[in-house]
Structures are given as C-alpha cells and as structure tokens.
C-alpha cells in the first residue's frame, strides 16, 4: 500500500473503489430486468432436457407424484420449476398426485393449485385428475413406508376425505404404482431421500428440481438414479425454454424462471466485469511497479 501523503494515481485509487458503487450496480442489475420483464431464452442442457423428454413421452393418464419439499424462502427459485412441470404434466393429461415431506410444502401445494392448475386447466377435476395429499411427518421414514404401503400413511387427503373415496387413489398401493416421482426442494428430506428410499429399491423414475446450492450434491445421481435435475433459476429457465419450444401456446405468458434468469445473467455479468476491472487495475499497477501489496 502506498503511504497516504503522496498523491495517488487514479488507477491506484480505483483499486480500492468504494464498495457502495458496486452495490448500486448490483441493485440496478437485478431491478431493471424485473421491472421491464425482459426475458432470455436459454439453451436447454441435457440434464434438464432429459427430464422434459421423459415427461413429454408419458402416455395419457400416467401417474405422476409431485412432492413439494420446499418452503417460502426457496420458493423464488423452486416455484418456477413447479409451475413449468405442472403445466407440462397437465398438457400430457397426467394424473397428478401432490404431497409434501416438508411441512412448509403444504401451503405451497394449495397455492400452486389455486394459481396454476385451477385457472389454466379447469377440466382437471379433484379426485379424478389430481389430488392433494398434504404433508406427513416422518422424513425419509415416510418415504420408506409409502414404498411399502401407501395408504397406511395416507388414509385421508389433505382435506380429510377418506382415501378410499377418492377414485384416482384406487390402484395406488405403493410408490411403485407411479410412473414418475418428481421432488422439488433439494434440502433434507428431498430428492436424495426419494432416490434412496423409493427410486432405487423400486426402479421408479425419479426427477428433481432443487436450489442452485444443493444441485452439486445431487449431480452424482444423474443419469443413473435421476431422470433429470433442474438446478436453481437456470434449471427453471431452461425447462421453460424447452416448454416454449414444444408448446408454442405458452408464448407471451410470463415465465418466472426466465425473467429471474435475466436478472441473474445481468448481475453475473456485472460481477464479472468488476472482477476483470479489478484485475486490469492490478496488472496496470504491477506493470508500473507500485502494485506490490
């Protein structure tokens, strides 16, 4: 560091730029794309595309289990994935079974049904085309029990209706009766537990959507134990892109993952530019022989 009294060069002063300037840029980078709703179509990577293709190849009336294993704090990242996959399943006319191994997932299930499924797919009837089974305690133990005997744990749905009076539950005795299980969350319990206690023993296809932070821990399960994995906002945006490609009718609708992704891209760019800027200054200083610190 130079000794304060001597006049510092501009380059030298810029190197210790006030961090508040960075803060302003980051704030703007996030807010502007959100306000203007700009979105960016992503190239879909194989790990995401494979799940999309799997869902798209499901015959009509396939049974899909959606497990809401997340809470409000991670909802900004996870909810867009849920919305996209839900839409696709509904397009495929799949039977939707919704449940949660996280207590916080219960409210989100209700919200998702009210916000997406009911208004966009009014032909979906409760008990025949979809069911909300709600949350049950027990973590991985719950999954193990569901694998052995589904109705023993779920003797009613979330509203308290006896399970035997729900038509679409008639042939569900074990997790093995499902054609696909998708867990959204990635914390504990979550995708990993679904793989270990349901997917692996029963050879049931398991897919997942998780936060960016937990994605690296789950990558090792792809492709053998996971059909596909959506990691963070990027995964959600990629899935939405695949959805738009296959179902052009969704164009024009606001895709939460994509606009989130636009904010992400701009913010990442800003950070990287600052890093490059910092390094340029550093090398300039070193070249002029003052940069030894």
């Amino acid at each position, binding site marked *: 560091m130079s000794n304060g009294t001597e006049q510092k060069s501009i380059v030298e002063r810029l190197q210790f730029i006030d961090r508040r300037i960075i803060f302003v840029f980051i704030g703007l980078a996030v807010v502007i794309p959100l306000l203007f709703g700009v979105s960016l179509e992503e190239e879909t990577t194989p790990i995401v595309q494979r799940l999309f293709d799997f869902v798209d190849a499901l015959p009509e009336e396939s049974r899909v289990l959606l497990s809401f294993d997340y809470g409000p704090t991670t909802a900004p990242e996870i909810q867009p994935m849920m919305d996209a996959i839900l839409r696709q399943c509904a397009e495929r006319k799949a039977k939707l079974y919704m449940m949660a191994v996280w207590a916080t997932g219960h409210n989100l299930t209700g919200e998702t049904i009210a916000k997406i499924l009911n208004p966009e797919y009014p032909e979906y009837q409760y008990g025949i085309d979809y069911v909300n089974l709600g949350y049950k305690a027990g973590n991985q133990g719950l999954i193990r*029990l569901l694998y*052995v*005997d589904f*109705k*023993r744990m779920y003797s009613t749905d979330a509203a308290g209706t006896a399970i035997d009076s729900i038509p679409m539950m008639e042939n569900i*005795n074990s997790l*093995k009766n499902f054609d696909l299980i998708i867990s959204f969350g990635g914390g504990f319990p979550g995708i990993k537990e679904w793989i270990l206690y349901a997917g692996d023993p029963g050879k049931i296809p398991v897919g997942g959507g998780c936060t960016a*932070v937990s994605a690296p821990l789950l990558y090792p399960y792809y492709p053998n134990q996971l059909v596909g994995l959506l990691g963070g906002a990027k995964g959600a945006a990629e899935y939405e892109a695949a959805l738009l490609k296959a179902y052009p009718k969704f164009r024009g609708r606001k895709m939460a993952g994509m606009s989130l992704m636009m904010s992400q891209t701009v913010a990442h760019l800003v950070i990287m530019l600052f890093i490059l800027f910092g390094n340029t200054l550093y090398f300039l200083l070193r070249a002029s022989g003052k940069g030894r610190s």
Partner: protein
Amino acid sequence: METKWRLAAIVIALVMILAPALPAQDEGEMADSMPAEIQMEPPPAPELVLGEDVPNDGGHKLKLTWGYPAEWSDSVARFLIFRGDAPDGEFKSLGEAARGVTTYLDIGSKIKDNSDYMANDHDFYYKVIAVANNGTESEPAIGGPFQTSGQWFHWGKVPVLVGVVLFGFFTVLFINAARKGKELFVRPLAGIEAVDEAIGRATEMGKPILYVLGIGTAADIATIASFTILGRVAKKVAEYQTDLIVPCYEPIVMSVAQDVVKSAYMEAGRPDQYSDDQVFFVTNAQFAYVAGVNGIMVRDLPATNFYLGYFAAESLILAETGNSIGAIQIAGTDQITQIPFFVVACDYTLIGEELYAASAYLGRDPLLLGSLKAEDWGKGILMVLMAVGVLATAFGWNAIRELVRVIL
C-alpha cells in the same frame, strides 16, 4: 494416581462399548422359521409362507415371503396379508402386495396401546390370499408361528465399531507417548500464528476484540473447539488489558463462554476485569443475530474479529462488514459450504479439521498434540485402505476388494 484413574476409565469405556457385542449370540433370539401348510385351489394359494425377524433392529418387524407358481403370476392381481395369534383364530387384515411381489414387510407399532402393536417374542401366524384379476380369491395359505425379537447388538455396525475402537487405541497410545515427553512435530498453521499478532494489534490501537462463536450449539464439535481457543484468546486479552466482546447466539453457548472467559481472566490474574456484560446473549434467530453483531462491529470498531465455530449463510455478511471496518479477521469453520466465503473475505481461515486442531496448537498441551498424531494415523490408514480398495477394483482382485469393503 490421576493417570491410573484415566487409564481405568478408558478400559471401562472400551469394555462397555464392546460388552453389548458379547452376549449377542446367547441372548439374541433368532426367529423360528417353519414351513406353512400348502394348499392348492384355482387360483392357487401361495405356496410357502416364511416369516423372518428383521435383523439388527428393536423387533416389531417381520419379513414375510411366499412362493407363487410363475405360470399364474400374470393372472393374479394382488395378495392380501393377514396376521393372527393362532392358526385357527381370528386374523386381522394388514395390507396387500402388488402383482408379482411375493414379500411383505410387516412393521408393527412399538407402542403397546396402538391398534397395530406387535409384541416381541410372541407367536404370530400369517395368512396370505391370492386375488385373481377377476376378483376371485384363493384358499388362504397359513404360516407360522413366527416371532420378532429385539437384538442386543446391531451386527451391521461392527466395522464402524472396530474403526472407532482402533482409533481410540491410537489416541491413547499417542497421548501416552506425548505425556512421556516425546517431542511431537506439528506443522505451523498461519491462522494460529496470527492470533498473538492480532491481539497485539488491538492492544496497540486501543480497540476491542470481537469473538464470534457462530450459531452452533454447545455440543457442535466446532463450538467445542472454539471454546478452547476462546480460553486462550481471553487469557492473552486479559494479560494485555484489551477489551473482549463475545456476542452469543445460543444461551447455553453463552453460559459456557462466560465460564471459559471468567476462568481465563482468573488464570491471568485479573478476575476483577471480567464482567458478564462482555459475554452476552443477542438472540437466537439467525439473521437477527447477524444484524446485532453487524451493529456492534460498525459502532465499537473492533481491531480484530474472530469467527470460529459453526457458521451458515451469515458468514459472509459478518466477514464483509468486518472487512469494511478494516479489522484483521481470523475465521474457521467445519461447514464446507461456508469455508469459501471465509477464505475470500478474511485474512486467515482455518479449514475444517484445522479448526479442531487449533486448540492443540495454542495450548501445546501434550495430550491434545497426541490426539492430533492419532488423527494423522487414522488418515494414513484410511488412505492406504482406500488405495488398496481402488487398486483391487482396478485389477479385479475381488477377494481383496471385498475384504476392504468389509473393513471400510
């Protein structure tokens, strides 16, 4: 005397850990398995009902298996399973198994008052009925008696036990070697060597030192390691007559930290300078705690910040705020996800195991140094085993590979 007592304690501990393993074969009752009677009617009844106690558990669980002719398996939709106390008595419906599945895991309740309670060491009979696609039911096949029982020892966990005992043995060995005055080398850790300098700097500047124990409980290993370091730091601080601020997240951690700091001040001969207001509770909500500590930082402007213990997302908020006030920062945690942030934003970072080792470094206590040596041996042995395992797999020496697998 002291030594003898300690050795005795160790021996007792080992015996107690091992003891449950010894009587396992005598007392652990294996469940009877007896063939069931065979009955044939279209659709044919299941052939042979076998019940087995599930091993390595507390009982109340029984695995039922039956046979079924392959040529019929497509025309049978499911099997119904019942349980009763006598072959000719009443049977209670348990559930069903899907097409093609010929096993059923009966998990009874462990609680006596529950309707599905399943007593241990009690004779049970099972009835299995095949249901054809058209709904007609077969004659029942009955099997029994079967029993479930709790075992005294979980055999699946033997390798872990062996490892732990072996490791304990090393620890004892090296601690004894260290006690006999054998000089043990330890490599320098930059973060630890900086501690003295950091305290000295705060003293020169006349500013306080902030010590954050993280958001773990008093039982997290990271917190326990941090207590020891806190003791050393507090002692130095007391000698230099600098201020020490320890805001706490968890009340039990606070209580322990108060004791630690108080006795450090006593050791330094300045008990009068200690006050419970130095080590205080903020709140045990993660981000409220961070908000509070941030406030302390920007208002009291400590010259040195220690972040040692269990940290989650707050690590970077603390470290960046600390950096903005120009404090020297020494961090350490065993939370892998947070290490990168400390590495980036702090001057010195103790990575994972280094945090645990730090207490030994600061004290130069032969006992603690001895256990470090034991850890290294543990690592060495694991490395050798892993290498042998990988080589064995690579060259197809299956026997060795299996051996390694059992050990690991």
